[in-house]
């Protein structure tokens, strides 16, 4: 019961509560950036603690929380995403009146995500996902004045609620089959029985868990809500959903499938593989004709979920390692892309249309370069991090002789090149109205900072791929070998 292990989580919880409390006190007043600064400090502290605890492997709260390399690494990634979101929402009009609440909710969602990736027990996993979802329901609808924001919030809530109900039912069946809610208990129970004739209840459990987690990760049969919610929600929230939620849910996938039920991987490998394949294809095709950049990035995040699922479907050490590495790359590219969209949105009315980006590269070359880097990386062009990630994912698929998955991935990436490069064309094309009418509005430094940092990260992740891969390998081993 060594409470010390969960120090990182304590700090996050404390900071969240503190910031939310600010909402009511005058300190939260406009002008002074107290909530944001406090939040960033808290996040920095959490990262420091996580790094400090890097070495050991221990569980806290009698098995409910596994503080090991896997959880900590993903937690760090989540905290980075949360920090970036806070920076991106620095001057966000949507959060004008209610900055402390906005920051507090982001921290709450981040805590939920950390909980999900570090959970060792079905109940913790469930409550983590729910905390994350509830915070995001509110965040989506936070710009109450704008109808689309409310609409996206409600859509996300209704479909989210259905997902939660199925998740409960899935976990219930899993609990029913194994008699325990702790993940290690489940894997022990499955291992002990040897490879059982697949218990039908267990099969039903897998179906429901795949469906529920699939919904949260917006894989294809359950992706319908994603484009609408990504378009409706305020852009920093969309960014956080695209980066943070994806990391947390992929962590959940890995925990439940590769971690807990890897003995029965023979059963769920093909199913997750099929879901991954369909997601990649439909995700990419869906994005082809989108003219709203946020909606297009929504579809693109669906497709990227497909690529990530390859690593999960494979169920091997190499698969997990490549998923983690690709998550890092994915977060970096998505942050870069959304940062530029936010930048553009603040300058011109309905800035989320692709045409709004027309000629932006010529008006602000550095923004053009960052956006081009993000798009090329998302498309998987070498030598950027996206390519290295895809290469590792395809490698793990081929290694587990699911080569067909790698081929589907390759074909889907070809389709993805079309719409990613369309953005690059628009970016560098001559501006429609001759000289570009960029209002010389001061570039919000925070957003520019995130954009450039993400751009640099995309290149750095590729060049220093090996050290990052070593860290991911440790994390994967921590997950696989209890």
């Amino acid at each position, binding site marked *: 019961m060594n409470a010390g292990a969960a120090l990182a989580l304590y700090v996050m919880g404390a900071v969240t509560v503190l910031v939310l409390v600010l909402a009511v006190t005058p300190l939260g007043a406009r002008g002074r950036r107290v909530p944001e600064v406090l939040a960033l400090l808290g996040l920095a502290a959490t990262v420091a603690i996580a790094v400090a605890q890097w070495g050991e492997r221990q569980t806290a709260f009698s098995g409910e929380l596994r503080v090991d390399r896997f959880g900590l690494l993903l937690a760090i990634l989540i905290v980075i995403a949360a920090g970036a979101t806070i920076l991106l929402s620095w001057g966000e009009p949507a959060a004008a009146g209610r900055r402390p609440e906005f920051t507090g909710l982001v921290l709450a969602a981040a805590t939920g995500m950390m909980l999900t990736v570090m959970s060792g027990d079905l109940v913790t996993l469930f409550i983590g996902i729910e905390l994350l979802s509830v915070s995001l329901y509110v965040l989506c609808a936070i710009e109450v004045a704008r109808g689309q924001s409310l609409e996206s919030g409600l859509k996300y809530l209704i479909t989210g609620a259905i997902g939660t109900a199925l998740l409960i039912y899935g976990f219930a069946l899993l609990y029913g089959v194994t008699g325990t809610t702790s993940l290690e208990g489940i894997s022990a129970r499955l291992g002990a029985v040897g490879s059982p004739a697949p218990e039908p209840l267990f099969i039903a459990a897998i179906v429901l868990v795949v469906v529920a987690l699939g919904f949260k990760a917006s894989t294809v049969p359950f992706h319908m809500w994603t484009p609408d919610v990504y378009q409706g929600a305020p852009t920093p929230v969309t960014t956080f959903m695209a980066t943070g939620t994806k990391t947390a849910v992929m962590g959940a996938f890995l925990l439940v499938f590769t971690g807990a039920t890897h003995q029965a991987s023979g*059963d769920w490998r093909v*199913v997750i593989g099929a879901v991954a394949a369909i997601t990649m294809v439909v995700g990419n095709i869906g994005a*082809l004709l989108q003219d709203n950049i946020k909606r297009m990035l929504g579809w693109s995040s669906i497709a990227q979920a497909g690529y990530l699922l390859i690593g999960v479907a494979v169920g091997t050490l190499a698969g997990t390692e490549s998923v983690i590495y690709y998550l890092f790359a994915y977060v970096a590219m998505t942050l870069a892309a959304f940062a530029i969209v936010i930048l553009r949105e603040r300058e011109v009315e309905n800035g989320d249309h692709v045409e709004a980006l027309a000629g932006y590269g010529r008006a602000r070359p550095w923004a053009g370069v960052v956006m081009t880097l993000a798009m090329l990386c998302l498309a998987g062009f070498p030598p950027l991090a996206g390519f290295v990630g895809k290469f590792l994912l395809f490698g793990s698929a081929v290694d587990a002789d699911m080569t067909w998955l790698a081929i589907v991935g390759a074909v889907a990436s070809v389709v993805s090149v079309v719409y990613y490069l369309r953005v690059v064309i628009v970016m560098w094309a001559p501006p429609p109205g001759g000289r570009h009418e960029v209002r010389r509005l001061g570039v919000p430094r925070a957003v520019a900072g995130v954009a450039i940092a993400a751009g640099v990260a995309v290149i750095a992740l590729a060049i220093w791929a090996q050290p990052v891969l070593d860290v991911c390998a440790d994390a994967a081993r921590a997950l696989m070998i209890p």
Partner: protein
Amino acid sequence: MATTLSWMVLVLPLVSGLVLTGWPSEPPRAITRVLGIGSILVAFALSVWVFADLLGSPPEERSLTSRAFEWIAIGDVTVDLSILVDPLSVMMMLVITGVGFLIHLYSAEYMGGDRDYRRFFAGMNLFVFSMLLLVMAGNFLFLIVGWAFVGLASYLLIGFWYERPTAVAAAKKAFIVNVIGDVGLVLGAVLILRETGTLDYAGAFAGAGSIGADSGTLLAICLLLFMGAAAKSAQVPLHTWLPDAMEGPTPVSALIHAATMVTAGVYLVVRCHVFFDLSWLAGDIVAVVGAITLLMAATVALQQVDIKRVLAWSTISQVGYMIMAVGLGAYASGMFMLMAHAFFKAALFLAAGIVIHALHGEQNLDRMAGLRKHLRVAYFGMGAGCLAIAGVPGFAGFFAKDDVLASALAGGNVGVACWVIGVIGAFLTALYMFRLLFRAFFGPEPGGGYRPVPHPSRWWMSVPVVILGVLSIVGGLVQVPFGWAGITDWLQPVTGNAPSVLAPTHTTEVVTVITSSVVALAGIALAWWLFGADPARRLRLAGVARSTREVMRGGWRFDEVCDDVIVEPGRTVADVMWAEVEPKGPQGIITGTTALLRGGARLVGASQSGLVRAYAFWMVLGIVAVGIVLAIVVTGAV
């Protein structure tokens, strides 16, 4: 010693040609003349020196090869840049540079009025260089290179007046037929390379025995080489380009389409006589083609109205004689005919040139008559040429043609058939040549006299015609039946004494001398009767066999047939490819996939109806789908 001189002979025209081309602006006429003509004169002098040097050395040491450097070593074959100096190539060098020099001298004035004076001489020099490279090359590869350069030079010179669309078309036609010939030669060389492992003459001919006499491969080699020769020497299927080549200036026609280029085919067959000796069938095919060309060309020449086209068809016919001779194995007599033909055909062309020059570009026989009073030199040149070419005893043509026919008679039943065709050809030759002579130089002047009286040309043009005239008279004495055989002895080390090499026997000599003399004189008499005695008779006889004469004037419709059979189908196939296959096939892949993707995107977009309940609905279907897949996997797997 001889080889270094030969290198100089080869390089001189090249250097002068390059200097003329590279000259920044239009050089003064004097410099063009000095460079253009001088280089050929020096080359001729050096060739004579080489000839003398070879003559001095014993027969067995007359074949010298000299290697400049190792050109390429690829796969397991190495090819050197090397030249072969032996009696055959020296003889060709003499003819090329000798006649070439006279023609260069002649064209100094003939082209006087042309703006691109420098470009003409550069072209002519490059032509002489290519011809020398062709005859002096030491291996098949550089033979092909020389061959192609000759084709290029002829393209440039035929299309010299490139502003005239007809000249441009003629040049293109000549070049493409030449490329077809090249392809044949390349395939032949490649086959030789495969069989004997080397491209050098010495190695290839030594290895020829191992290919197996009269085997299919050997026949293939010979026929492929002959395909190249036929294209260059304008033999039957590939001869259509020569008459059109008359679009070029007359000196060009003289040099290229009379003296040197067309004889390259003959040279090639003689050079590769080892192959032809081993495959009798190939020899006979070549001889038959020669014979057919001979007869066909003679008939067509009879009907031509343009003075240069008459000479062009006559060249095709005479080369037919040479090809027939070498086909049968009479290499020496073929070469003798080649040399003699060079002299009198050049004389005829240059004389015609004087006529054209004097009449300011007029080439149509109908508008010419009675020129012997005005153009004495042209008359002498044309007369000597006609006498020689007709084979009137005592003249060069008589001895050469007689030697060919005599050898043919001794060559088995194919030889006899060729002899008969040869005799008929000789009769027709005499007929059409003297038709030309009488119509142009005898009879009353058209329209009561030429308005601007045609003034004779200056010495530049007259001297070469006179020299060539004299040569056509004297040239034959080199090899006299029953006397001495200069050419045969000279070429003996090259052609060697393989059983298939033909030589005229005593009896065939006698028979041929008599028949050819009688036939020649008969031809002249008929020509005098038809055209000389009473110019009006020609008009009266115009109605006789009008349709056949029409066909013969059109060159037996070879052009039309060739277009319909080869060119048009190619064009239609290309159009089909361009209009049908390209848009549907390769482009179709692109348009097809883009349409597919666009359709898919619309479909996926449509399913995004924005209705919350629809999403819930799809979720249920998703659950069922995942359940079914898993059930299949589990039951399947278990």
